């Protein structure tokens, strides 16, 4: 299951399999900064699942605000997936 998820993540993150057109949700990712499109409708949880990213280490910010995992997303939403992991020494 993890392998499937990771394969999906790398496929979409590399631009292969991304959805285009009016029925797509555009998602901005950080570190490194990039943008992908996913088929609409989807949910906050669906975005992370499609990208193969752990929920425990990523915030999904919709139109500047946090929303629950089952919040529906459509083409007009501004979606940012932000990693929360910081590393190194502090």
């Amino acid at each position, binding site marked *: 299951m*993890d392998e499937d998820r990771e394969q999906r993540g790398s496929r979409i993150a590399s631009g292969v399999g991304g959805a285009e057109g009016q029925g797509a949700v555009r998602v901005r990712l*950080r*570190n490194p*900064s990039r943008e992908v499109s996913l088929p609409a*409708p*989807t*949910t906050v949880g*669906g975005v992370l699942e499609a990208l193969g990213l*752990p*929920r*425990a*280490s*990523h*915030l999904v*910010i*919709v*139109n*500047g*605000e*946090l*929303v*629950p*995992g*089952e*919040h*529906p997303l459509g083409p007009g939403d501004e979606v*940012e997936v*932000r*990693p*929360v*992991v*910081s*590393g*190194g*020494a*502090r």
Partner: protein
Amino acid sequence: MTEHTPGRQDAAALPGAAPANTWRAVAPPRSRRGPRRCVRCRQPAAVELPGQRTAFCPPCYLHHVRQKVARTMAEGHMLRRGERAVVAVSGGKDSLCLWDVLATAAEADATGDAPPLLEAPPAGVYLDLGIGEYSARSRETVERFAEARGLPLHVVAVAEELGAGIPEAARSGARSACGVCGLSKRHLLNRFALAEGYDVVLTGHNLDDEAAVLLGNVLQWDLEQLRRQRPVLEGRPGLVRRAKPLVRTTEWETAAYCVVAGIDYVVEECPMAEGNRHLVYKDLLARLEDRAPGIRSAFHRGFLRRLQPLLEDQLGEQSLAGLQPCARCGAPTTGEVCAFCRVAERLAARREAGDGAEPLSAGADPHPPAGPPPSRTD
């Protein structure tokens, strides 16, 4: 400038619940029950915490984090009434979350609206690591936050104390970038706190940091590092007490706190941290957490309750016995000269020999395999 500055979510109108038929299309179980509600006030929830099986609306989420930090500090005896605390701030989500929580607690304390925690909003101390644009952006973020909140801020430049910034110090080859960064922070924060008369240094180490370090120490069975992995490291002559009020708070929670509270923080990772093994441990633990919500907390909490006290009993005395003042700076150390002074001397020697200023070549590994593992615990 950081790239994203969300507005204060607690002050803004909450997004309304979607029509039931839209919910049904993507999430049948929840659509039958309606949108998830805040466990505290029953308003629509915005922040879900699967590991704690709970959810909050924005204002109640801020309250939840503040209460958790206050409880952690009280139970850990991190700060006693009347003591002066300084917060180590980096511009990242954890330290700014902590500073905001403590400043808010002090303000509420002053009006009698909350249990006593601090008599005055705490000062912050920022260490300028000398990592090019990253440090410049971090400092700007911290200064902006301090000014907006009216909080006192001190700045200490590592280059002035060590003789070079972290990138150049790492190139001297004594330690990895994270290794020399960690020891510089510990040394300089302690020196600053001693000089300024602070009783305790509060740092933004979170639950994920501690769980990742714990996993690394367990994988190597490093008993001495395990013994020292505590939320509070008590002070002793030459060492100011250090405490980690966010030890029960995940970094997802601190990041969410900043987004909800409208705190602008540096989202970008430190460029020197690439390849750090603790990032690998964190990713493994995050994937485990998705499968078993709460497992990171259980892992760390179980260690603190069941194993750490045993290690303290067995190894604590012998570890204390070997400390003596550094021959150069007087800081407690196990050798004749402390690690910080040794790095400073090595840098000075390289400067004298004329080979300390070459730039790091593209693709050079900032974490040489021979270097010691980075530690975020002490």
